[in-house]
């Protein structure tokens, strides 16, 4: 147990992760359509500001600006040859900010989905996916990331590819999926499916969980689904600050700092050990979350009704877990 995240997990009851990267950078002037990763070398000061925002608000962990740092994503900006450099800078800037924090802060090297559909449904093979994630992982490792942080994954195949890349890079990792389709990931994975998926991996993550998705309520329902399975690995909750609303030509997330404070406490009571935000979560939200986590004692596991009452309703009646019978289409003969 030599890595910074394992040490913090052993010492503490709960840890706070960071908030939004993308939406924060847009507020700093990133133009839509540009790759945020290019700012690691073009505007390192802004990236330091992004990281410091989370650290100053009390985050124990922050994610590097490297979500779209695989060759598959950088190719869209003709920057596929800069995977190593851009990921290394993302982590180096993170290392600098974390080391100046005066307390242990984990630099988590963010790795987002390749954006491609994996075989046999789509063109991306397991080998190519592993290779792309591995290339990114090596850059993050070289820049001094404490752990790799794989997020917003939909396909189990891609999650497994990222796990293998982490093994090849000999790095500890955390991996979360995005449950945005009636409680499942886009590819149909339920919360309980994910616990099973994680349990079967050779190179297990230090923590697993959910990020992004729909609103804070849905995310907590997913966390309840994880903890109901009694997973041995800590659970991560990184939900959006409410639901995006279109107001006067701008997008505004409707989750207030107070609401995110309630969300953080409910997430912990639901069984999450690492709690953070995702899209729309500003340092102000994070401060409120930190304060709520520190000032509120542990409570009982909330019911779905309590979550809906405090944070708002769910996007769907069911999340695909449990015994609800699924109507199967009557079939003719099955083929061999």
């Amino acid at each position, binding site marked *: 147990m030599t890595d910074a995240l394992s040490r913090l997990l052993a010492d503490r009851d709960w840890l706070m992760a960071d908030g939004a990267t*993308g939406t924060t950078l847009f507020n700093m002037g990133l133009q*839509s359509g540009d790759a945020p990763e290019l700012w690691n070398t073009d505007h390192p000061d802004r990236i330091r500001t992004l990281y410091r925002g989370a650290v100053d608000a009390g985050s124990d962990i922050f994610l590097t600006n490297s979500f779209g740092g695989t060759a598959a994503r950088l190719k869209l900006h003709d920057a596929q040859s800069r995977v190593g450099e851009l990921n290394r800078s993302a982590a180096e800037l993170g290392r600098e900010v974390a080391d100046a924090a005066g307390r242990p802060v984990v630099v988590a090297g963010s790795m987002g989905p390749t954006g491609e559909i994996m075989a046999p449904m789509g063109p991306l093979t397991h080998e190519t996916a592993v290779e792309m994630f591995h290339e990114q992982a090596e850059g993050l490792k070289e820049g001094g990331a404490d752990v790799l942080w794989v997020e917003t994954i939909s396909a189990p195949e891609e999650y497994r590819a990222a796990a293998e890349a982490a093994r090849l890079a000999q790095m500890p990792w955390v991996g979360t999926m995005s449950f945005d389709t009636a409680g499942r990931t886009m590819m149909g994975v339920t919360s309980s499916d994910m616990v099973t998926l994680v349990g079967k991996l050779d190179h297990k993550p230090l923590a697993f969980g959910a990020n992004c998705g729909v609103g804070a309520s849905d995310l907590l329902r997913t966390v309840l689904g994880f903890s109901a399975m009694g997973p041995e690995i800590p659970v991560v909750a990184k939900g959006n600050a409410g639901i995006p609303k279109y107001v006067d030509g701008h997008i505004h997330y409707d989750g207030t700092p107070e609401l995110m404070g309630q969300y953080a406490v409910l997430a912990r009571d639901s069984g999450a050990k690492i709690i953070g935000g995702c899209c729309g979560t500003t340092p102000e939200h994070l401060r409120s979350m930190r304060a709520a986590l520190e000032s509120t004692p542990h409570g009982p596991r909330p019911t779905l009704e309590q979550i809906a009452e405090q944070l708002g309703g769910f996007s769907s009646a069911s999340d695909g877990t449990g015994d609800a019978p699924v109507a199967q289409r009557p079939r003719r003969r099955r083929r061999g």
Partner: protein
Amino acid sequence: MADEEDDIILSELETEDLVLQMHDDLYDGLKEEIEEGVNILLERGWAPYKVLTEALVAGMTIVGNDFRDGILFVPEVLLAANAMKAGMAILKPLLAETGAPRMGKMVIGTVKGDIHDIGKNLVSMMMEGAGFEVVDLGINNPVENYIEAAKKEEADIVGMSALLTTTMPYMKVVIDTMVEQGIRDEYIVLVGGAPLNEEFGRAIGADAYCRDAAVAVETAKDFIARKHNQVAAG
């Protein structure tokens, strides 16, 4: 598989059973079986348009409904759409020759600033699976791309996708430009993407917000039918 006793020999099935079997095979995403089934129906004298609608589109409707109802998920739907596309590849030249009616044509792309394409790709595949012609503009499209392509392709539908809250508002720019140019009413405008909702679709002046690819297909069919009715009435 071939030497199993209860294996199905498509060419030995009565036509009615063959069509039902093709619905099942589409459901299971069996590409080669679909190609074989299409060829058998053509050999038996079915018009290409009848093969398309009764065997393929009808089969994909079942897939779409089960996707909508949460029984099937994206991976299964993609395999089904691939099988459908393989059948469609055989029919396409024949349909053109016979001057069969068109389901409709869609120009689709992710809006400027947005580089996410999975959702858009799913919609494209499902729309093609439902028999629509789809012109995929890819990612990061400025307003000109949509309008030029819609005109050039004589599209019925303009589809826009955005996965970022920061890029959603660009959909309004496209619609406003269409209004300015006086061409808004010539197209059915459908929008979709994870952070959108119905309220947003209405606010920016789209014809409809489509929650997922299956809804997109149903909505497109619905609007095309209405458009045909209007033409008939006018």
